[in-house]
């Protein structure tokens, strides 16, 4: 029973990672990160149900709040990136190249 939830959570998480690694659009990367967060949330909730404790719920709510805050910040960054280069391709932001 619990395994099913966890397998789903792992699948979602891996999809998220795949998205972050492969997608070039900033929005897609961002959405993939949200997917990873929610995969983690799913695992929390599942364990919470298993142990019949509210701790997992608290953490899931916490993650949601953090995700919302992060979204506000990330969107602002995205707007700035767009102003800077008028494109949202991650490949053109490579100032850290050694």
């Amino acid at each position, binding site marked *: 029973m619990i395994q099913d939830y966890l397998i789903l959570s792992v699948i979602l998480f891996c999809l998220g*990672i795949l998205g*972050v*690694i*492969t*997608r*070039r659009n900033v929005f897609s*990367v961002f959405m993939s990160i949200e997917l990873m967060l929610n995969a983690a949330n799913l695992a929390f909730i599942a364990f919470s149900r298993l142990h019949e404790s509210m701790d997992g719920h608290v953490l899931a709510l916490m993650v949601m709040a953090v995700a919302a805050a992060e979204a506000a910040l990330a969107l602002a960054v995205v707007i700035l990136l767009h102003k800077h280069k008028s494109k949202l391709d*991650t*490949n053109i*932001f*490579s*100032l*850290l*190249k*050694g």
Partner: protein
Amino acid sequence: MEHTVTYLGVIPLLPLIGAVVIGLLHMFTCKKTPLPEIFYGALACVGPVLSFLLALVVFFQLKGLPAEERFLTHNVFTWFAVGELHVDMGFLADPLSSLMLLFVTFIGSLIHIYSVGYMAGDENFGKFFSYLNLFLGSMLILVLGSGPVVMFVGWEGVGLCSYLLISFYSKETDNVLAGNKAFIVNRIGDLGFVLGMSFLFWAIGASGFDYLSLKANVASIPPGVGITVCLLLFIGACGKSAQIPLYVWLPDAMAGPTPVSALIHAATMVTAGVYMVARFSFLYAHYPVAGSVVAWVGILTALLAAIFGMFQKDIKKILAYSTVSQLGYMFAGVGVAAYSAGIFHVFTHAFFKALLFLGAGSVIYALHHEQDIWKMGGLKDKLPRTYWTMLVGAFALSGCPPFSGFFSKDEILFSALATGHTGIWLIGVLVAGMTAYYTFRMIFLVFHGKPRVQESFDHAHEPPAVMTVPLIILAVGALFAGFLNLPGIFGGNLNVSHWLAPSLSEHHPHVSVWLELLAIATSVVAFAIGITFAFKKFGEGATEPEFIGFAKIAYHKFYVDEIYNAVFVQPYKAFGSVISRFLEPNVTDSHVKVSVWLYQKAGTAFKVFQIGYVRVYAIYMVIGLSLMSLFLSQTIN
């Protein structure tokens, strides 16, 4: 048996507080609105005077105790405790330190008062008094410290103040160089002190490193170590008290203001070495060989400095060499195990030498900073108070009975004779004659005869009372201090020696009265011959002679400074430049250069991972986290 009193630590603290307060006030006000001098002067004198009063309290409290219980202690706090080494910031007042305490605070207070007059109008008036207070505080720590480590704190403190005050007129390069010289030469001596202290700790320090514990355990030192400790400590004393071969800094130290010469380089700091040897008398008393070394170095220094003193023409240089010479006497005294005689000479010397320096200061002040005795003359009527007080000082210095110097010097010479050091006694008598000669050469040239430079003579005037009153007080001291330790032959009973006895490890040899009479008679004859020669040559006015032959060599101090420069300073400089030019760039720097090169290469190698694409960094993160998870899952199971 010791008694604990809680005001002992306050004695050095008072001048130190004064130093900080005056220093801060001077620092924050000297640029904009300088405070009035009288304010600084009053503030500076408070600490020393209060310390003097407390010193009197200490003295009388000690006097009230039975002789063998005269030890007052005050452990303020544990300074540090590492392994076996346990050092308290503690103070000890016993008969020896209380005597030092009394005259240091007394003469210190007088010189503070005198300085208010002498330094008037100086732009760094506040700074001067801050340093002077700092000096007095350090000197009191040196004297009162309950163990060698605390003494060393004071020892370094007075060295620092000496440096600061020698180069006080820092606008002239020579003065600054003189300060440097004093500091560096003292450093050499301090190394000896530190090494001696370390050996002493290594030998017997484990069961307490203060004088009382050391004294109790002195018997368990291995003889070889003991004699090494004695000689190393004496090197320290040579530096601070200007003995051969480290005496060269003291004559140059006269570059400082005259009250500084009087306080630091005549009365107090330079006698610290003698005090230290007397303090460690429990150690020196075990090793007569080390004592003989001390005595011979001392008496040879006395001879050498007296020769130099006979040919100088700067009034302060004459007094400086005479100080070196008198310090030599003191070391001769403590060297032949007559510790109380040496300390008593420290005591009387402090009075008459401070008096002579302050008198010289008055003359210099009156003649607007003229120091060449060949440009003075006939000042007797112009500066009567200075003349009469300096005359007292001169008689005391040359050992004329019944002035103080006679009794103390005679005690040393007599002890040398009584302990069988006939050579030291003979040189000592010779030096006594030379002392009388050069002292009265100075007196006759400065005060008698006709003025040599009419213009400065006409402008000369007696300094204000703030300067002459300390002179008179010191003159009284120089005249009568000798009676405190009147030997039995004059109907006294050596009060000072008996007072000091509980602190010192000395035995008075029993010798015949005739030997004592012989010592006294020769001293008096030497004095008479010296003063007669001086009178014949300089009594009725003399003109500056051309120095030729021996006199020229002696005037140039046997070219010792030049020899030191050629033998030590220049090779050392050359050595330094070899290191900085060849050794450092090629040998020591190479390690640094190799590591720099390695880091550069490593950086280039790792550069390839910095792709710049954000998703590649994401891959790194995923790989890293995966590996970490893998590792954790492996270790947990």
